[in-house]
């Protein structure tokens, strides 16, 4: 198992168990209600099959919220390891301001709140009382408090991010379950590369070029018939 940056120790089995729990679709953050604008891209015919879904998601990961959220997560993880509340506040302030639309702001805000609420109820010893944290910040802080290695957290986070949007695609395109899994599998290399980059990237490395993915989120707000909240 890979070692986490700065932890110096091999990941133990209990840590692996925890990070799998947090980033499983069964952990109640309500991820299935968000499509990150994909629902509009499908409506507009931009995404219509496995290949166009893979391409759209690769852009999300490498040039969109995937990479930016990974850098936010890593900064929150470091703040947790150092028990640095001021650093956490800086990361959270940036995470809260980075959304390109009302729905994307909702997506990161609601999932962050749900994540922090459940984590605090199940593991009260590592809870952070009273703070509102956006989703990647909540995950990074929690993983740091539980001493779960950063690299593994990042890979699981990016996998969950991609798999959640794939699942939205499977339902909305629609696409066969096996094709959906092929898309998730095909994104492994990209997700691992982004995790590696995010592990050491400072906050000012945040930034993207996913302009038409942001535009899809703006259009989604006025989409007539919708299953998803973003």
């Amino acid at each position, binding site marked *: 198992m890979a070692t986490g940056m700065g932890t110096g120790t091999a990941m133990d089995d209990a840590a692996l168990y925890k990070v799998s729990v947090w980033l499983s679709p069964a952990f109640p953050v309500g991820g299935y209600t968000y499509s990150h604008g994909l629902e509009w891209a499908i409506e507009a015919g931009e995404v219509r099959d496995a290949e166009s879904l893979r391409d759209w998601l690769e852009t*999300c990961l490498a040039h969109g919220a995937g990479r930016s959220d990974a850098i936010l997560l890593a900064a929150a993880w470091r703040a947790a390891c150092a028990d640095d509340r001021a650093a956490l506040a800086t990361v959270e302030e940036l995470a809260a301001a980075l*959304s*390109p639309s009302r729905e994307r702001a909702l997506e990161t805000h609601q999932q962050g709140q749900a994540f922090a609420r459940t984590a605090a109820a199940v593991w009260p010893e590592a809870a952070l009382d009273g703070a509102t944290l956006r989703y990647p910040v909540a995950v990074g802080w929690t993983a740091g408090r539980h001493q779960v290695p950063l690299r593994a957290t990042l890979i699981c986070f990016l996998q969950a991010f991609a798999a959640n949007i794939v699942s939205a695609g499977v339902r909305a395109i629609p696409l066969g379950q096996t094709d959906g899994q092929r898309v998730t599998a095909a994104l492994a290399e990209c997700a691992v590369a982004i995790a590696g980059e995010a592990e050491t990237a400072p906050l000012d490395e945040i930034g993207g070029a996913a302009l*038409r*993915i942001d*535009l899809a*989120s*703006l259009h989604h707000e006025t989409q007539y018939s919708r299953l998803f909240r973003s």
Partner: protein
Amino acid sequence: MLDDGSRSETLRLQRAVGAVRVSAKPGHRRGTTVLDGLYQQGAGKARFPRTHSPWLEAVLLNTAGGITGGDRLTTGVSVADGAHLVATTQTAERVYRSLGEDGCLDATVSVAGGGVCEWLPQETILFDGARLKRTLNVEMADDSRLTLLEPVVLGRQAMGEVVRRARLVDQWRIRRGGRLVFADALRFEETGTLARRRGVLDGARAFASLLHVAPEAEARLEEARAILAGLPGLADPRGDVGAGAGVGVEAGASAWDGMLSLRFVAADGACLRRALMAFLERFRAVALPRVWMM
């Protein structure tokens, strides 16, 4: 002549450094704005054309005639309570091929109390090999009004130039009443295929961000969307022919937390400019600065 990148490059081996700071305050006559202070250094200049409008118009110039690697230009704008400043640029800013270093443009805007600042520069044109790092930091009060625009065009359209490599990093940070309310981080690193990606530009060559922050900004969302729906050259969002296929402009708007944010993606610079002018004329309900028409 200005579009001849190679010639300008050879003329411009020396790095350009410049700074300009403009501050605006209310005039003696009620509802007017006057210049409070002006500092110009190096390639940074500002002009104040006579207008019939009550606000102050500042036209910013880079006398070095474009940006290349190693250039560093800073702009500072400050608007007092009760004043209204419209800042624009004399012409499109051309960013030439860099031999390695980034060109840097740093801008700070501060708006006090009920002040109004409109930052409406003309487009930034990235030539093949351009490297530009830009920051825009705003401090405003809860009741200040702010409009920010940044249009970007890839390559010289008339010459059919393809931008194979370019790097634009643009960081916006808007603080309102001391709180960071909006951060935009553009990290556009073209290495051959980025702009062609469907989720990036789908082959389109121009884009813009427009942000309006004001007490009534959220309430203007429906109005903004109605203007967008009537834009000249609007691509059918459900059609196969979009901005990337060389036709039209795509645009969308959203509002939250006291802000109205718009994005535009257009087939080319001319298309983008037409759309922005049409939007701004209706949304602002006043004419754009004259330099925009030339």
